[in-house]
């Protein structure tokens, strides 16, 4: 019957996969959940960053995770600029609901088409020295190509949480999610805070890109695999709840992997999204979402 070792391994590798989902979702949890900016181009940005990281690594021989940390600030500044454009043309005039969505949809297509035109339709990947190695804890296997990105993901998410609670700007980001205009009463420009936060969300996409390219090869359309999942995770968590996003991502990874182990990989999205629907039926605000007013 069911082999317990198989189940434990499925859960552990599900947790590792969940860490990848977590870092990929965290940026969207900031932009969509906290800032109300529905950035559906987020996975496309992640793929773009993967291509950049792959290019830099093949030239310099640097580690992709390290390279991700190096390119993240550049993507952060790109995000700040992008938010300024979005704010100027859509948010400011109150057109963000549909036109803003179309803007990010267009951006997603633009990124994908550009990547195909420049790099072709082939997959890109990075050889790492640890790629083929596996750490074994008793019967549990921890492949380093999953473990190291997972650790990087958790470290960056931890840093984000600390920053949001301890720094002036971080607390202002937490506040902008709750009452944007009340920040003005404290001499804080909410648009500047949102720009910073959006920059951070794009920087997180770059970090996730480094993790992704270690885990698997990436092509121009790899974002499509992620867009449904990370939207589901952010909504499952409850919009704007970052700890909830982490938990929901881990849960999603474990359930996908368990379903794949028990019934075959074709079932895993069906089971995972079925769970999403079930949760939303019982708790429309998500697992960790407060009743938003």
């Amino acid at each position, binding site marked *: 019957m069911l082999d317990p070792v198989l189940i434990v391994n499925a859960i552990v590798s599900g947790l590792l996969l969940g860490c990848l989902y977590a870092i990929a979702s965290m940026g969207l949890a900031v932009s969509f959940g906290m800032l109300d900016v529905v950035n559906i181009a987020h996975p496309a940005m992640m793929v773009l960053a993967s291509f950049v990281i792959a290019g830099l690594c093949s030239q310099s021989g640097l580690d992709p995770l390290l390279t991700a940390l190096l390119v993240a600030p550049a993507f952060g500044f790109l995000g700040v600029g992008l938010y300024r454009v979005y704010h100027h043309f859509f948010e400011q005039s109150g057109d963000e609901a549909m036109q803003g969505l179309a803007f990010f949809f267009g951006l997603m297509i633009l990124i994908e088409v550009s990547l195909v035109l420049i790099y072709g339709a082939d997959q890109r990947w990075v050889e790492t020295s640890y790629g083929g190695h596996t750490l074994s804890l008793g019967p549990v296997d921890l492949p380093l190509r999953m473990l190291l990105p997972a650790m990087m993901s958790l470290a960056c998410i931890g840093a984000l949480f600390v920053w949001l609670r301890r720094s002036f700007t971080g607390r202002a980001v937490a506040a902008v999610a709750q*009452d944007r205009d009340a920040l003005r*009463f404290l*001499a804080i420009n909410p648009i500047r805070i949102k720009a910073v936060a959006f920059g951070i969300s794009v920087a997180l996409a770059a970090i996730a890109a480094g993790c992704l390219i270690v885990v698997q090869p990436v092509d121009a359309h790899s974002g499509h695999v992620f867009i449904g999942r990370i939207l589901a995770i952010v909504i499952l968590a409850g919009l704007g709840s970052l700890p909830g996003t982490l938990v929901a991502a881990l849960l999603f990874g474990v359930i996908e992997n368990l379903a794949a182990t028990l019934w075959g990989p074709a079932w895993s999205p069906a089971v995972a999204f079925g769970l999403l629907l079930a949760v939303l039926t019982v708790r429309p605000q998500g697992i960790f979402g407060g009743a938003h007013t």
Partner: protein
Amino acid sequence: MAYDALVVRDLDAGYGAVRVLHGVSLRVPEGQIVALLGTNGNGKSTLMKAILGLVKPTRGTVRARLDGREVDLTGRATEEIVDLGVVLVPEGRRLFRDLTVEENLVLGAWRACARREISGNLRLCFETFPRLGERRRQRVGSMSGGEQQMVAIGRALMSMPRILLVDEPSVGLAPIMVKQTIETIGALKAKLGLTVLMAEQNFTQAIRIADRGSVLVHGSIAFEGETAESLGDNHLVRQFYLGT
């Protein structure tokens, strides 16, 4: 030398086609509390918002004297006005409900000059409102209305205001809390030498601490009392508030 810390002159303001304020003039002498009186819908909040740049006046000026410097506030952005030291305790408090008491308070200290004084000012808040000190790690959304009003006033103090605007501090509070809140504003003014403009419906409570008062009726100043007594004796005030 006594001078006027805040001077509003001939102010017209409103929302879209609706004009709410008609030629309002008002002055707040330095170190005094001016009560802005009037029942609901007469323009008190609109005047507060116009002073703070949240509603753009169509005519008239708002000028402040801050640290010996005359500043024109008209047409400036809200965050810029607050950064100059004109701080509002907004109607409805506008706190960040999912943050703790302390996080809300510290957010008030965004101004450069306030950041240097955070620990001292936190101590001041907790001395003024011991309840907040006991509950500094509590989520603000889970607190009572009176406690939330303490956080709102505390958050404004953290910004180190020169001129404090308080919009309807008594709304939604139990009578005992109304009395306490108003008394605290009076005590803070005496302790910190604040200049205060307070919009308030609760006439009897407001004039207990006010040095002067103005009554706003249908968007115009209907009566200005130089002293608290003159307000109590005025027939307009009696007519509008006391029903006699």
